[in-house]
């Protein structure tokens, strides 16, 4: 079943040096419960696309629908509640002057879910779900480690009880040991809560291990969309092969696979 459908979506920015086509006539669908990876380098339009899905950037043209209902640029609170974001930089994504609890509670306040004590209970539960002590809610972001802050970012999105999570490079700023734990957590949460993920990243090795399908973007266009298995056994576009060829590998089986897919560069 399709949860989010995108049809011929475009975004053009007007700049002093002429129009910039950040996203060009992109069409694809995200299925209920899947993890769709969006892969691309800087300038691929992946962030612009995410901002249009999240409703913080108006489209130039095209259609979006969520759960078979059209998703306008001017979102209802129900629209907003069902699509949440986890950002890349866990330091900047939390307001340094607000407590963790206040940040996580923002969605509940905005959508007016429950009374005051129920909201605090939800905040505690969300922190618990991401493996943090609910008592951390009283602290400010500066006293937390990078991994803990990223967990708070996930808890903030979860507290809203969303159906779709847009994960924008959620682990690129983290150390590899912390990354492994966060990816595990995201996997568990998706399974337990039946969430749908749009996982934006440039790291194909991460994609291989978390995504069901992969959409490869280049210069605002969708160049390849296929199941993860297909992408990593038989990549179709030159650009996908180029991206796979650039992945640094750590063991010989990986090296053999890379060489098989893209030739010994």
């Amino acid at each position, binding site marked *: 079943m399709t949860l989010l459908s995108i049809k011929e979506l475009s975004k053009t920015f007007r700049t002093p040096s002429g129009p910039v086509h950040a996203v060009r006539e992109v069409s694809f669908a995200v299925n209920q419960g899947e993890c769709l990876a969006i892969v691309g*380098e*800087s300038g691929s339009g992946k962030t612009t696309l995410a901002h249009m899905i999240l409703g913080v950037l108006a489209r130039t043209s095209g259609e979006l629908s969520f759960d078979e209902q059209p998703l306008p640029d001017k979102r209802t609170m129900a629209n907003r509640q069902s699509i949440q974001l986890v950002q890349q930089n866990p330091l900047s994504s939390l307001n340094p002057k607000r407590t963790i609890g206040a940040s996580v509670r923002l969605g509940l306040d905005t959508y007016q879910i429950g009374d005051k004590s129920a909201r605090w209970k939800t905040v505690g539960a969300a922190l618990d779900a991401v493996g943090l002590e609910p008592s951390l809610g009283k602290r400010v972001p500066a006293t937390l480690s*990078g*991994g803990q802050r990223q967990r708070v970012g996930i808890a903030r999105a979860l507290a809203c009880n969303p159906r779709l999570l847009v994960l924008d490079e959620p682990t690129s700023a983290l*150390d*590899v*040991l*912390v*990354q*492994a*734990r966060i*990816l*595990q957590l995201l*996997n568990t949460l998706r399974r337990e809560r039946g969430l749908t993920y749009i996982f934006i990243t*440039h*790291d*194909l*090795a*991460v994609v*291989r*291990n*978390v995504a069901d399908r992969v959409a490869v973007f280049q210069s605002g266009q969708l160049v390849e969309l296929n199941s*993860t*298995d297909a992408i*990593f056994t038989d990549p179709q576009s030159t650009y996908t092969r*180029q*991206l*796979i*060829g*650039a*992945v*640094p*590998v*750590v*063991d010989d*089986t*990986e090296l053999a*696979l*890379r060489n098989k897919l893209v030739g010994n560069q």
Partner: protein
Amino acid sequence: MSSVLNINNLTLSFKTLMQRVDVLHGIDLRIEAGEKVALVGESGSGKSVTARIILGLLQETRSAVVHGSVLFDGKDINTLTRKERAALRGTAMSMIFQDPSSSLNPVFTIGHQFTEVLKRREAKISQADCKKRCLKALIEVAIPEPARVLSSYPFQLSGGMNQRVMIAMALANQPSLLLADEPGTALDVSVQAQTLKLMHKMVTNHNTAVLFISHNLGVVREFADRVYVIYRGNIVEDGPTAALFANPTHPYTRALMAAVPRITGTGLPQVPEFSDEFLAPRVSHGVNP
């Protein structure tokens, strides 16, 4: 036999009004002429401060307490004067940083900055000579239209192009040691892969020794001859790249290795963020060359 760099029992702590924070707890590290050595670790492990000590920068910070010896071409960086240390930088040792665009000065042309670099070694170099050597260096790093690049400002060039310029500048004075701190991490993956290959070729051609600082095991594996793994201010494992990657032995190295996602799709491993085993004593593979 004398090494290009020989670090013995290097310790570093930062003093503040109230407390003392120990950052390095006795680092031993050696680099032979023309050898490519990687120092790999996570954020806060002490890898970047090590580079700053080798460059002689941290010794000039009042709050930093540095002990042990850092022999560069037989001279101890720790005992040199401020002036002597400054004279080494940009001549006998040079550095490539993470973000090429911010390490080049935006208000001067590439040509101007390149000339400054060459003048550090040869103050009275002639204009024509200078231009000739700049062009030659840019051609060597496969920059198309080198004359146009010389008259450009850094913001007019792509990140990858700036990184190539940085490599050319870093090697222009034939340094015996190149420090590369997370080179290209700020760039796109495909550009990063290309520039690393180029850097590898360049330092091999020039027989320049490299200390390659990175958090990325895959990148290290493709670049370095030998690897040191650093964790919380201690070297926990070291050895030739092939041996270390084939048989990671220290618990921390093993966890690090296991945590790297593989394109073969072996799934997400269950590794702890911390374990007491990570504090086990150092493991060395084979004899240093």
